C-alpha cells in the first residue's frame, strides 16, 4: 500500500507527467482550432477546454481524449506536488518556486473563471432599463408563478439539468413549494414551430396542431433557437403537455390548484445587482459613410435610492459590483436616420478578472530571479577563470 502511494506520488510529481500534460494541452489546442472549421467558438470551448473527456473525430475513427479541464487539473496537482512541495528548498530554487506559484495562480484563475464567471449582454433602447443580463448561448427553463401580491416569482433550471432529456429518460424538475413537477421529454437544440398537416407524420408530439421541427445546428451556437416538450404532472391529474420555443412571444401558461403558473424557455439570465437605465445613445459615423466611427451610451446606475450617471464608450467600460460592462454594439443596423437605436452592452462577471495579470507578474519575477542568478553565477565563474 505504501509502495503504491509512493509510486503514485512519484508519478504525480514527475517531470515526465508535466511533459505529457503540456503535449496534451498543445494537442487539444491544435485540434480545437481545427474543429472551428466545423463548430463555433463556444461549442469548441465546451468540447475541448471545459470537458474532462471528449471524443475527437479523426475521419473514420473516434478517438477518446482527456479534455483540457482534466489535463489542467492534473497539471495543477503535478505542479503542487512536484514543483512546490517536493522541490528542494534553497537559494537556487527560489525563482523556480516563485514561477511555479505563478503558474498555479494562472490555473486557479482559469478554474474560477470556468466555475464562477458569467458572460452575456444587455440590450436597451433609450428610456429602457434592466435588472439582469442574459447569456448569448446558454438556455434555461424557468417556472413562473404569480404571487398573491401580483409579483412574479421564478425558479430556474440551467441547461445542463435537462438538455439530454428523452421520452425514455425525461429530466424531472421540481421544487418543494410547487404542487406539480415538470418533466422535460424532448429537447431540440435548434428548431422552429410548424403547423402539422395531414399529409406527413412527425416523430414528436403535436400540441394544439403545432409541432417543433428540428433544424440543423448552426455553427455559431448563439444563432440556434432551442425548443422543448414538457409535461406538467400533478398528483391525481392527467399530465398536461406543452411546447416551449426559445423565440416564443409568451410563456406557456397553465393553472394548478387555482394558481396560475407558466413555463418559459429563454436565454440564461443573471441578476445585475442594480438597475441599468439607458438615458442617451450617440454614434458618430465616418464621413459620408453609414459606418460608425465611435459610439457611446449615457447610462444611469441605480442602487436603491442612489443614482449614478455614467458614460460607457468603446474603450471605457463600466466596472461596478464585480461586473464589467463594455459598449459592444448598437442597432438596428438598417435603421433610418429618424429610427430609434438600441445599445448593446457586453457584460462579464469574473471574480478572477485580474488574476492572470498578477500571475504573469509573479511568473516574470520568478524567472527574472532565477535566470538573473544563473547569469550572475556564470559571470562570476568567467571572471574567476580570467
Amino acid at each position, binding site marked *: 500500500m505504501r*509502495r503504491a502511494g509512493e*509510486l503514485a506520488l512519484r*508519478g*504525480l510529481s*514527475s517531470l*515526465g*507527467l508535466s511533459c*505529457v500534460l503540456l503535449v496534451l494541452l498543445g494537442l487539444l489546442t491544435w485540434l480545437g482550432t481545427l474543429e472551428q472549421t466545423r463548430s463555433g467558438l463556444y461549442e469548441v470551448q465546451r468540447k475541448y477546454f471545459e470537458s*474532462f473527456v471528449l471524443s475527437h473525430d479523426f475521419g473514420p475513427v473516434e478517438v477518446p481524449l*482527456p479534455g483540457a479541464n*482534466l489535463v489542467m487539473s492534473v497539471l495543477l*496537482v503535478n505542479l503542487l506536488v512536484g514543483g512546490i512541495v517536493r522541490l528542494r528548498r534553497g537559494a537556487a530554487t527560489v525563482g523556480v518556486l516563485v514561477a511555479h506559484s505563478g503558474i498555479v495562480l494562472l490555473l486557479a484563475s482559469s478554474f474560477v473563471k470556468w466555475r464562477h464567471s458569467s458572460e452575456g449582454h444587455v440590450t436597451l433602447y433609450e428610456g429602457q432599463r*434592466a*435588472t439582469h443580463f442574459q447569456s448569448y448561448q446558454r438556455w434555461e427553463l*424557468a417556472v*413562473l*408563478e*404569480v404571487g398573491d401580491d*401580483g*409579483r*412574479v*416569482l*421564478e*425558479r*430556474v433550471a440551467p441547461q*445542463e*439539468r*435537462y438538455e439530454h432529456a428523452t421520452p425514455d429518460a425525461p*429530466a*424531472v*424538475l*421540481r*421544487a418543494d*413549494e*410547487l404542487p406539480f*413537477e415538470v418533466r422535460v421529454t424532448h429537447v431540440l437544440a435548434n428548431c*422552429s*414551430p*410548424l*403547423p402539422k*398537416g*395531414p*399529409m*406527413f407524420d412527425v416523430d414528436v408530439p403535436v400540441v*394544439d*396542431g*403545432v409541432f417543433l*421541427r428540428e433544424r440543423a445546428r448552426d455553427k455559431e451556437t448563439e444563432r440556434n433557437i432551442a425548443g422543448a416538450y414538457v409535461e406538467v404532472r400533478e398528483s391525481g391529474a392527467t399530465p398536461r403537455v406543452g*411546447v416551449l*420555443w426559445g423565440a*416564443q*412571444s*409568451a*410563456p*406557456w*401558461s397553465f393553472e394548478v390548484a387555482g394558481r*396560475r*403558473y*407558466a413555463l*418559459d424557455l429563454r436565454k440564461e439570465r443573471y441578476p445585475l445587482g442594480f438597475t441599468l437605465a439607458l438615458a442617451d445613445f450617440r454614434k458618430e459615423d465616418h464621413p459620408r459613410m453609414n459606418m460608425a466611427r465611435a459610439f457611446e451610451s449615457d447610462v444611469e446606475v441605480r442602487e436603491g435610492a442612489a443614482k449614478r450617471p455614467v458614460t460607457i464608450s468603446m474603450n471605457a467600460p463600466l466596472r461596478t459590483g464585480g461586473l464589467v460592462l463594455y459598449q459592444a454594439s448598437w442597432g438596428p443596423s438598417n435603421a433610418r436616420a429618424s429610427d430609434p437605436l438600441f445599445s448593446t452592452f457586453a457584460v462579464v462577471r469574473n471574480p478572477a478578472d485580474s488574476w492572470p495579470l498578477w500571475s504573469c507578474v509573479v511568473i516574470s519575477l520568478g524567472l527574472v530571479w532565477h535566470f538573473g542568478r544563473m547569469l550572475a553565477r556564470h559571470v562570476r565563474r568567467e571572471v574567476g577563470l580570467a
Partner: protein
Amino acid sequence: MPTLPFRTGSLLTFAVLSLAVSACSDRAQPSELSAPRESSTPAAAIEQPRSSAERLGVQAPPAAAPNATNASNGAPTSGGNGALKWELPAGWSELAPTSMRVANFRVAGDERAECYLTFLAGDGGGLAANIQRWRTQMGQGPLSPQEIAALPTKPMLGGEAVLVDFAGSFSGMGGGGKIEDARLVGLLLVGPQGAAFLKMTGPASTLAGQVDAFLALAASLRN
C-alpha cells in the same frame, strides 16, 4: 524493490485520475429548481392564456375562399381567392376550396379530371416523399434519387417547381374515385419557407390536351 518505469507510472497515474474525475460528472435526477427569485416577466404575460399557435407565432394555413364557383368557357379569365390570383384556363371551372385545397379546379373535358393547389408549412414532408406518394397513388414504384434529380422544372409562384408526369391507375387519398388509364401531372415547389403543390389528375385521354393549360395556370399564380 522493483519499481514501475518512470513513464509508465506517470501515464498510469494520469489514467486513474482521468477515470476518477470523469466518474464524478454524472448527474442525478430529479433536479431541484433554483430558489425562487423575483422575475422581470410581467404578470400579464402569465395571466393571459394563449394558444400554442399564438405563442409560437405559427400561421394557420391560408384562409378558405368564399364558397363560390367561377367558370371559363372561352378565353382564360382572371380568378383568385383573395390571397392568390390566377388566370383560369379556357374551359376550366373553379370549385369551392377545401381546408387543404387553397385553389380547386375542374379540368375541361371530364368531370373526373381535377386540379388543385395545396400549401403546406415547412417542406411539407419533402420533395422526394411527396413524389413517391404520388407514384403510389398512380400504382407505380418509387423513383430513384437520380431520377428525381433529373426531373424538369417549370415556373410557379416565383420559383422553379419540379414537374412530374405519371401514367397509371389513379386512386386518390381515401381510395375513392379510382381511374384506370389515368395520368397525374404535378408541380412541386418545396423550400424551407413552405411547400406548394399543384396537382392535376384525371383520365389520360382528357389530360393529354390540358397539360399546356395546366402549366399556364401554374405560371399565372401570383399574390
